[in-house]
C-alpha cells in the first residue's frame, strides 16, 4: 500500500467519523425537548401560524422528521400530519424529497377567497409523496366538502414563477409531466394544466421531440366577484392520454356556478371521446369501441353536502345511457337514489366477454339494462334488470332464431339475487354433423338465482318447452312434438365440487320412434322426477332419486350411480317398481311395434301388475341385472275369449345379462314360483297349476311338470327350458305327454264333427330353434275303433302367420262305419288302414301329402251305401251321379265291395288321385266283390287342382242321398 493510499484511507475514516459525530449531534439536538420547543416557537413567530409537533427526528444523510405535526391558523386552515419527513440536498440546497403520512388539511373557503397572491415563492421538490391524506373545505364551522384517502406521488415538483403559481410535476400514472399555471387573483384567476408525455429515452438519449405533444390541455376560469355567484368554466382536450391502460382522445368541458353564499352549485358538462376503448384495466366487462358522447347536469349543495345529478346522457357504441342520481356526501357517501338506464346495447359485446367456445358465436340483437342503487357506498343495494327482446344466436352447432330474456337482479354486498328471470326462446337448434341433433320450437324458462361468495350457487325455476325434437345420427331414434314442462333446481357447490340437479319434468305430448318402437307419449304422460349429483372430479352421476312414471304403465324408481359419464358410462343402479302394468307394457311397447310382424298380437289381451327390484351393473352393452320379478293377477287371453290363462301369479328371482357370453351366477339358481289359477280353452277349464322356476344366466327353466287337465284327460308339459330367454326367446325345449284326452270333448271344443275316442301320446323332446319346432316321439289317437299314430311332428315358423305343420300319420283299424257316420259320408262298413306321409298343413290348408288309405279285409262285412258311392263319385269325378245311383237305389241300399281306397299325392295344389287297384289302365276306387250286389268305382280324373278339390268337397256336403226313381 502506498503512502498516498494510506493517507486517503485516513482522510476517509476521519470524514466518516466526522459525519457520524455530526449525525449523532443532530439527532441529539433534534430530540432535545428544549430545541423542539425553541424551534416550534421560532417558526410560529415568524410565520404567524400555530405550529406544533410531538417530536423531531433525523435520519442520515439529511432527512428531518417531524412526528404528529400540526399547523393552523384560526379561521383559515388546520393541518395535521402523523409524520412529515423532508430530505435536503446538499448540492441544490433545497428540499429534495418530501413525504407526508396521513395528512389532514381543513380549509375555510372564505379565507381562501379572501387571500391574495403576493408573489412567487420558488419551491422545487424532486419527489413529493402524500400518503392517505384528507382535505376538508369548510365554510365557517360547517364542512362542505370532504376528500378522503388522497394519495399523491409527484416527481419534479416546482412551485413558483414570475406571475401567479407555476407548478410542474411528473405524473407517472399518466406517463407525463404536468404543468400547472395559475394566474390572476384569488377571486379571478385562470388555471391551465398541460400534460406532456415524458421522454422515454434512456440515460444517453439526447434526442428531443421536434414538437411538444400535449396529452392534456385543460383551461379553467374562475370568477368569484365579492358578493356575487362564483362562475367556473373548464375546457379540456386530451390526445392519446394514457388512462387505465388505454389512450384516450377527446374533450371534456363544463361549467359550474356557485351561489354568492357558497351554499350550492350547479354544473353542466360534456365529454366526447373519439375512440372509446373496448376495455379498461380495472373493469371486468369489455365494451364495444367507438366514439362516445356524454353530457351531464347537476347540482351540489354545500350546506347539505348533497350531489344531485339531474341528467346523465351517454351515447356510445355500447349503448345509450340515461341516468339520474342523488348522493349524500356526509360522513360516508350515501346514494339517496340513482337510476341508470342503458339501452340499445349491442349484444355482440357478449362475444368479447364470454370464454370459448361462446366467444366464437355470433349474437345479433340489442339489450337494455336498468339499474337502481340506494344506500351507503360501502353497503349499497343495487337492483335492476337486464332485458332483451330479440337476440339471434348462432355458433358452432347451436342456433336460436330468437331469444328474449328479462333478468331482474338485486345486489347487496356480497350477494347477488336474480328473481324471476325469464327466458323465452324460439327455434333453438342443435345440429352437429354425425351426432345426435335436437331442436325446440319454443322454450320458456322462469328461474331465480341466489349467489353469495363462498356459498353454493342455486338456481330454481320452472321450464316449459313445446315442439321439441331429437334424432340420432342414423335417424333410427327420433322424437318429435315433445312438450316438456316442470320445476327444476340446480345447485353448484364449488367447495364440494358438485352440481346438483333436481327436477320434475312432465312430458305432456310427443311421439317417439326408437328403432321399431313407436310411442305416442300423450297417452302415457311420462313424468321424470329426479334428484342427482354430478361430481366432475369423478365424472360420476350420483342419482338419489330418479322416478319414471307413465300414466298407463306405472312407476319405476331408479337410484344409484352412473360412472364415466363422458366416456363409456358404467351403471350401478337399483331399479324397482311396485305397480307396473303388464297390460300397459304389452300395449305400449309390444303390440303396436310388432303387430305387423306378428298379427297374433292384435288378438291378445294382457293384464296384471308387475313388480320388480333389480340391481343393474356394467356398461350399457354388457349390463348385468339381478333381482326379483313378480306378477300379480296376470292374465293372457284371446280377445275373442276362445282361450284364457290366468290369474297368473309369479315370483321369480332372476339374473340376466346383455352380453351373450357372460355368465356370472354359479351354483343352483334361486327358484321362484308360478301359479296359474285356471286355463280356459274353448269351454274347457284346466285345473290350477303350480310350479317352481328359475331364471339365471338368461336360462329360464321350469322345474316341475305343468299338468293341464283338459278334455277329460291330462296334458303334461315337462322340462320346459329356454337356454337364453333374453337373446333367443324362440329357442326352447320341452317334453309333452297326453293322457286320455277325450276326442269327443276335443272335437266339440274345436267345433269339428264330433267323434269319440282318446288321444294319448308322448313326445319326449320338443325343440324350437331357428323358426323350426321339431319333435321326437309320437302321439297316438284311438278313435273310430282304430288307432292313428302321429310322428315326425314339426312346425315351421311357429310364431308367424305362415306357420306350417308337418307330420306323418299311421292309420290302423279304423272302423269305416263310425268314420263315415261321423262325417255324414253315407255308410261304409269295413276297416281302414294306411298312412299319410309328409302331410304339410300351411296356413290352415294341406299343401303336401302322400297318402295310401285302403280297406283291410278282416273278414267282417264290407258294404258301401249308394250315398257314399255318390259322394266318392263326386269327389273323384266332380260330377253328381245322383240320378244314376238313384236308379240303383230302387233295388239296393248298399253294395258289397272287396276293397276300397286310394293313393293320393298333393303338391302345389295338384292332387294326384289313384285307385286302390289298377286294372286295364283304370284306377278303381272301389272294387266290387264276387257276390252281388257289387259295384266298381273307377276314377277317370287322376289330377285334380286343389281349388277343384275344394269345390268337390263343398259339393259333397250339399249332396245327399240319391233320388230314388
Amino acid at each position, binding site marked *: 500500500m502506498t503512502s498516498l493510499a494510506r493517507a486517503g484511507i485516513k482522510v476517509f475514516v476521519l470524514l466518516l467519523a466526522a459525519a457520524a459525530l455530526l449525525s449523532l449531534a443532530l439527532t441529539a439536538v433534534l430530540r432535545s425537548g428544549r430545541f423542539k420547543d425553541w424551534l416550534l416557537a421560532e417558526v410560529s413567530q415568524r410565520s404567524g401560524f400555530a405550529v406544533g409537533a410531538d417530536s423531531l427526528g433525523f435520519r442520515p444523510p439529511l432527512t428531518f422528521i417531524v412526528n404528529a405535526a400540526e399547523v393552523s391558523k384560526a379561521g383559515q386552515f388546520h393541518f395535521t400530519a402523523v409524520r412529515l419527513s423532508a430530505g435536503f440536498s446538499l448540492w441544490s440546497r433545497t428540499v429534495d424529497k418530501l413525504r407526508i403520512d396521513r395528512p389532514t388539511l381543513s380549509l375555510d373557503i372564505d379565507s381562501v377567497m379572501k387571500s391574495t397572491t403576493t408573489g412567487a415563492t420558488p419551491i422545487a421538490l424532486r419527489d413529493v409523496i402524500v400518503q392517505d391524506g384528507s382535505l376538508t373545505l369548510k365554510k365557517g364551522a360547517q364542512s362542505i366538502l370532504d376528500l378522503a384517502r388522497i394519495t399523491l406521488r409527484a416527481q419534479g415538483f416546482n412551485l413558483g414563477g414570475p406571475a401567479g403559481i407555476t407548478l410542474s410535476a411528473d405524473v407517472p400514472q399518466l406517463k407525463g409531466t404536468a404543468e400547472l399555471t395559475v394566474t390572476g387573483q384569488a377571486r379571478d384567476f385562470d388555471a391551465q394544466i398541460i400534460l406532456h408525455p415524458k421522454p422515454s429515452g434512456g440515460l444517453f438519449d439526447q434526442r428531443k421531440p421536434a414538437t411538444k405533444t400535449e396529452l392534456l390541455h385543460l383551461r379553467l376560469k374562475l370568477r368569484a366577484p365579492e358578493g356575487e355567484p362564483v362562475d367556473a368554466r373548464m375546457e379540456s382536450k386530451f390526445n392519446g392520454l394514457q388512462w387505465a391502460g388505454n389512450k384516450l382522445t377527446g374533450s371534456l368541458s363544463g361549467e359550474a356556478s356557485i351561489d354568492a353564499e357558497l351554499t350550492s352549485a350547479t354544473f353542466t358538462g360534456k365529454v366526447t371521446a373519439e375512440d372509446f376503448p373496448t376495455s379498461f384495466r380495472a373493469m371486468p366487462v369489455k365494451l364495444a369501441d367507438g366514439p362516445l358522447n356524454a353530457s351531464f347536469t347537476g347540482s351540489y349543495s354545500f350546506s347539505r353536502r348533497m350531489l344531485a345529478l339531474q341528467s346523465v346522457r351517454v351515447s356510445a357504441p355500447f349503448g345509450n345511457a340515461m341516468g339520474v342520481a342523488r348522493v349524500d356526501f356526509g360522513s360516508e357517501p350515501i346514494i339517496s337514489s340513482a337510476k341508470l338506464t342503458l339501452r340499445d346495447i349491442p349484444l355482440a359485446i357478449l362475444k368479447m366477454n364470454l370464454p370459448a367456445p361462446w366467444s366464437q358465436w355470433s349474437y345479433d340483437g340489442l339489450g337494455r339494462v336498468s339499474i337502481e342503487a340506494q344506500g351507503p357506498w360501502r353497503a349499497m343495494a343495487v337492483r335492476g334488470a337486464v332485458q332483451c327482446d330479440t337476440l339471434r344466436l348462432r355458433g358452432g352447432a347451436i342456433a336460436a332464431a330468437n331469444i328474449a330474456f328479462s333478468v331482474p337482479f338485486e345486489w347487496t354486498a356480497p350477494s347477488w339475487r336474480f328473481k324471476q328471470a325469464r327466458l323465452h326462446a324460439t327455434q333453438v337448434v342443435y345440429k352437429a354433423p354425425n351426432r345426435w341433433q335436437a331442436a325446440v320450437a319454443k322454450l320458456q324458462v322462469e328461474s331465480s338465482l341466489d349467489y353469495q361468495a363462498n356459498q353454493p350457487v342455486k338456481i330454481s325455476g320452472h321450464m316449459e318447452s313445446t315442439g321439441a325434437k331429437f334424432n340420432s345420427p342414423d335417424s333410427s331414434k327420433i322424437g318429435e*312434438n315433445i312438450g316438456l314442462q316442470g320445476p327444476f333446481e340446480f345447485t353448484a357447490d364449488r367447495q364440494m365440487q358438485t352440481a346438483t340437479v333436481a327436477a320434475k319434468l312432465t312430458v305432456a305430448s310427443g311421439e317417439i*320412434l326408437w328403432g321399431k318402437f313407436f310411442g305416442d307419449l300423450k297417452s302415457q304422460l311420462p313424468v321424470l322426477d329426479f334428484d342427482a349429483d354430478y361430481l366432475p372430479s369423478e365424472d360420476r352421476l350420483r342419482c338419489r332419486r330418479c322416478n319414471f312414471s307413465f300414466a298407463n304403465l306405472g312407476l319405476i324408481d331408479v337410484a344409484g350411480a352412473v360412472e364415466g359419464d363422458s366416456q363409456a358410462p358404467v351403471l350401478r343402479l337399483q331399479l324397482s317398481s311396485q305397480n307396473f302394468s303388464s297390460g300397459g307394457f304389452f300395449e305400449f311397447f309390444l303390440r303396436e311395434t310388432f303387430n305387423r310382424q306378428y298379427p297374433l298380437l292384435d288378438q291378445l289381451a294382457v293384464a296384471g301388475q308387475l313388480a320388480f327390484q333389480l340391481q343393474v351393473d356394467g356398461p350399457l352393452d354388457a349390463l348385468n341385472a339381478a333381482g326379483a320379478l313378480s306378477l300379480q293377477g296376470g292374465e293372457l287371453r284371446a280377445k275373442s275369449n276362445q282361450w284364457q290363462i290366468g290369474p297368473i301369479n309369479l315370483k321369480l328371482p332372476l339374473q340376466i345379462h346383455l352380453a351373450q357370453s357372460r355368465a356370472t351366477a354359479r351354483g343352483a339358481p334361486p327358484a321362484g314360483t308360478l301359479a296359474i289359477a285356471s286355463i280356459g280353452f274353448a269351454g274347457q277349464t284346466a285345473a290350477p297349476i303350480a310350479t317352481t322356476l328359475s331364471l339365471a344366466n338368461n336360462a329360464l327353466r321350469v322345474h316341475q311338470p305343468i299338468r293341464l287337465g283338459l278334455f277329460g284327460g291330462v296334458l303334461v308339459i315337462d322340462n320346459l327350458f329356454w337356454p337364453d330367454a333374453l337373446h333367443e326367446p324362440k329357442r326352447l325345449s320341452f317334453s309333452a305327454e297326453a293322457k286320455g284326452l277325450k276326442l269327443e270333448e276335443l272335437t266339440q271344443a274345436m267345433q269339428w264333427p264330433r267323434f269319440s275316442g282318446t288321444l294319448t301320446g308322448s313326445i319326449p323332446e320338443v325343440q324350437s330353434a331357428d323358426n323350426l319346432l321339431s319333435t321326437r316321439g309320437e302321439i297316438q289317437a284311438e278313435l273310430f275303433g282304430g288307432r292313428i299314430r302321429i310322428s315326425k311332428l314339426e312346425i315351421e315358423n311357429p310364431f308367424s302367420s*305362415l306357420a306350417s305343420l308337418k307330420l306323418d300319420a299311421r292309420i290302423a283299424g279304423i272302423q269305416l262305419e263310425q268314420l263315415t257316420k261321423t262325417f255324414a259320408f253315407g255308410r261304409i262298413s269295413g276297416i281302414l288302414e294306411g298312412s299319410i306321409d309328409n302331410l304339410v*298343413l300351411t296356413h290352415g290348408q294341406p299343401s303336401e301329402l302322400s297318402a295310401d288309405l285302403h280297406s283291410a279285409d278282416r273278414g267282417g262285412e264290407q258294404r258301401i251305401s249308394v250315398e257314399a258311392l255318390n259322394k266318392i263319385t263326386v269327389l273323384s269325378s266332380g260330377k253328381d251321379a245322383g240320378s244314376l245311383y238313384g236308379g240303383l237305389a230302387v233295388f239296393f241300399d248298399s253294395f258289397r265291395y272287396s276293397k276300397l281306397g286310394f293313393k293320393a299325392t298333393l303338391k302345389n295344389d295338384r292332387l294326384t288321385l289313384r285307385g286302390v287297384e289298377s286294372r286295364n289302365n283304370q284306377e278303381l276306387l272301389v272294387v266290387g266283390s264276387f257276390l252281388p250286389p257289387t259295384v266298381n268305382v273307377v276314377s277317370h280324373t287322376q289330377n285334380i287342382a286343389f281349388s277343384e278339390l275344394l269345390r268337390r268337397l263343398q259339393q259333397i256336403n250339399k249332396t245327399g242321398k240319391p233320388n230314388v226313381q
Partner: protein
Amino acid sequence: MFKRLIFLTALWVSACVTVNIYFPAAAVERAADQIVKETWGGPAEPTQTPPKPQSRQSDSPRRLVALTWTAEAHAQEADINVSNPAIRALKDSIRNRSSAIKPFMDRGNIGIAQDGLLAIRSADGLNLKERAETKQLVDAENRDRESLYAEIAKANNISRDSIPRIKAIFATSWIDQAQSGWWIQDSQGVWRRK
C-alpha cells in the same frame, strides 16, 4: 383306317351331350308378372311397351355346355307352379298390404330398390307414426317377398342357390309394373321417378 377314323369321330360326336343346370327363367318371368299383377294390380295406366324377349334370363343361364350345337328349347318350357297354400298366403298378405303401402309410394316416401324390395326413400312429410308405419310395412313386405321367392323355389324344386335369380326376375316385374310417379332405384343406385 380312314373308315375307322370316321367311325370313331362319329361315335365321339354322338357321345357329346348337353348338360343343363336348368332354371326355368321364362316361366319364372311369367309367374312374376302374374303375381305382381295379382298382388299390386299392375301399372295404373297401361302403356305400350315393346314386346319382351321370350326369356330375360335365358341368355345367361348357369349352364355347362360341352361341345354342344344342340339348340335349347326354353320357349317351350311349362309354367312353374305358383299355387300352394304358402304362396297363396304370401300373395294374400302382399295384396292386403299393398293398399297401405301405395299411398306412401305415391308420395315418394317408399320406392322400389334395384333388387325389387321396397326401401324407405324419404321421410319428408311423414309424422313419426307414419315413419314407424312405413318402416313396419316395408319390413313386413320385404320379408314376405323374400319368403315368396323361397316358396316358389321350393315348390318348383329350384335350388336355394337360384333364389337370387328369382328375386332378380321379380325385381324387373315390380319395376316394370310400378305405377307412373313411383320412385325406382336404377342399377347405379340412383333414385328416379318413373
